[in-house]
């Protein structure tokens, strides 16, 4: 067996192991998941909550984002909205001012700053708030009315809970790219839930994560040097052994990139930032002090980058290479295809397949489909809601695209390429 195939096989087996592991957690926690999802949300008091909305050139969506905040099932006088305009060059500032004028019954502030990034925007907001909790809502996302109530309910139950995260859905997917991402987000909902149950959550998504202000201030706020400040803060929360929880049924919708270019730019930043965080917090990897987070989740995050190489190699070996081989063969015969067409024979030889690879690839596919199905059932979000044609390409093509971006990110970091937003 050649070295490439050995790497591919290590990838197969370890990926299978982790898939089995996640399914085991699901079946172990099935009853708890059901119980948590049926919990009746009752609050004895409504603590003050600030919602920070960092915005850079968000004229298309910011009005709807702000409307979703004022429609939250939360007393007006206990809600403070702070929009941080990060040097927008479009009409964002004008739209927000207009919104403030029309909703004088709400406490809405607009902070204007020079363009300096999302983390700085959040820190500037954090500096002026005194509320027990604060939420962050990206200006391209919309929170559902009952979400804040659910998140604060769980926050109030546990003093060690530093961050509650929502269940993210893709807002009105229209393009194929968005429909692919919708499926990814559905699987992601369950994955984040399971990570939450074993204290392994390491991301506080920009769309409406709710923080305990005192803990975040104690940690020094958001890291302005990180590309993924929402993940970096989650790592620091984990380092200090605070808790992060995904709240059942706390839905938030986000606008996903509508084309491949947008998706590439977004994921490049996510994967690069994620890898930088892994390097920054390498002391936690395989560190038993951090329980499953140290010995399972972080090694899994590293493995994802290795599996991406394996997936790409497998894809090239089984799809791209045979295509170019056939092209080369045609070149050898001067692209004269007539003899092949005249004497075409359709031969199917089931013995002429490499059984082990096929078995493992389809097994992993089956596990992934099962995971998607389980998640859609738990969250009542039908997989086929927006059509079924794109489901199969999602499992083959989308993962390859993600693998390609991951591999590229590793190479870019190795050659020291600077990140452009």
């Amino acid at each position, binding site marked *: 067996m050649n070295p490439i195939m050995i790497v591919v096989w290590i990838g197969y087996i370890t990926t299978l*192991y982790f898939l089995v*592991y996640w399914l*085991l957690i699901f079946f172990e926690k099935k009853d708890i998941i059901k119980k948590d999802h049926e919990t009746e949300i009752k609050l004895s008091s409504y603590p003050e909550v600030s919602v920070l909305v960092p915005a850079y050139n968000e004229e298309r969506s910011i009005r709807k984002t702000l409307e979703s905040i004022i429609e939250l099932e939360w007393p007006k006088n206990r809600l403070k909205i702070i929009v941080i305009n990060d040097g927008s060059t479009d009409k964002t500032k004008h739209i927000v001012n207009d919104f403030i004028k029309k909703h004088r019954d709400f406490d809405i502030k607009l902070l204007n700053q020079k363009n300096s990034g999302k983390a700085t925007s959040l820190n500037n907001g954090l500096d002026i708030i005194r509320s027990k909790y604060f939420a962050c809502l990206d200006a391209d996302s919309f929170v559902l009315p009952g979400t804040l109530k659910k998140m604060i309910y769980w926050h109030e139950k546990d003093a060690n809970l530093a961050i509650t995260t929502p269940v993210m859905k893709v807002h009105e997917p229209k393009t194929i790219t968005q429909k692919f991402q919708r499926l990814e987000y559905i699987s992601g909902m369950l994955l984040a839930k399971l990570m939450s149950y074993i204290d392994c959550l390491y991301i506080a998504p920009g769309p409406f994560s709710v923080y305990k202000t005192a803990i975040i201030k104690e940690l020094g706020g958001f890291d302005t040097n990180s590309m993924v400040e929402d993940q970096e803060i989650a790592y620091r929360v984990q380092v200090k*052994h605070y808790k992060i929880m995904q709240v059942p049924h706390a839905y938030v919708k986000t606008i996903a990139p509508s084309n491949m270019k947008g998706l590439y730019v977004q994921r490049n930043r996510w994967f690069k930032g994620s890898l930088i965080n892994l390097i920054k917090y390498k002391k936690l990897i395989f560190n038993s002090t951090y329980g499953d987070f140290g010995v399972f989740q972080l090694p899994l995050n590293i493995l994802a980058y290795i599996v991406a190489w394996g997936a790409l190699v497998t894809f090239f070996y089984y799809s791209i290479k045979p295509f170019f081989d056939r092209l080369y063969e045609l070149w050898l015969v001067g692209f*004269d295809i007539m003899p092949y067409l005249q004497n075409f024979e359709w031969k199917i030889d089931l013995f002429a397949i490499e*059984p082990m690879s096929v078995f493992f690839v389809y097994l992993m596919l089956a596990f992934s489909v099962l995971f998607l199905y389980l998640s859609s059932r738990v969250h009542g979000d039908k997989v086929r809601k927006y059509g079924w044609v794109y489901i199969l390409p999602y499992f083959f093509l989308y993962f390859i695209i993600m693998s390609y971006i991951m591999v590229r990110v590793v190479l870019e970091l190795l050659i020291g390429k600077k990140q452009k937003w």
Partner: protein
Amino acid sequence: MVERKISKQRYIAATVITTFIFIFGVLLGLVLDYERVEYLQFEYSKNELDYKSLQMQFSLLDMEEEDMKGCAAFEKVMESTVSELADSLEAVQTYREYSATKKDQYDIIERRYALDNLRYWMIVKRAQKICPMNKLTVLYFFSLDNCPVCPNQGVILTYFKKKFDDKLLIFPINTDISEKEPMLDVIQSRYNITSYPSIVIGDDTYNGILDKDALGSIICSKLNVSEGECS
């Protein structure tokens, strides 16, 4: 503070399940490997029977001169058996690539196929002297281990096989088993095979790769075909 836990039981359970699935996959591979060899043995028995039949038909032809009806029947059977033999040899080489355990058995199978190809080639050459056949025999010597350009020659030969169909009878000989099969040395020395790929067309030897145009003009010069077919 979060009470950190390492869920040892879950890790063990996941390891056991993954190992079980892996072993199942390996067993599946072994079963398939076994079935492939069984299938090839069966195909070989069929080829053996076909050869016996062909040999008897040839002996009969040899006894009666100018038996045109017999020649036509012989030609038909010969075309189909040679074609089946080529398919079987292709399958042997594909299966061998995927086999993890039965390399020795594949050596034996390949030896058998090499000998089969040679004896079919010999019988066709002898039959050509008795029956008027517009057929060209091509003995193709190749190596999978020591000849990176051999697959290219294989592609070009397949192209002409598709183009001239039954008029071209190709007998591929895998020389990687030369050490195990002395007959290959004998035939290679007789036809002065010095490198791979090498092709014996009719009675002439061509050492080294022949591209589409070169091979096309040789075939056309030796085969009775229309100009259109050779353009």
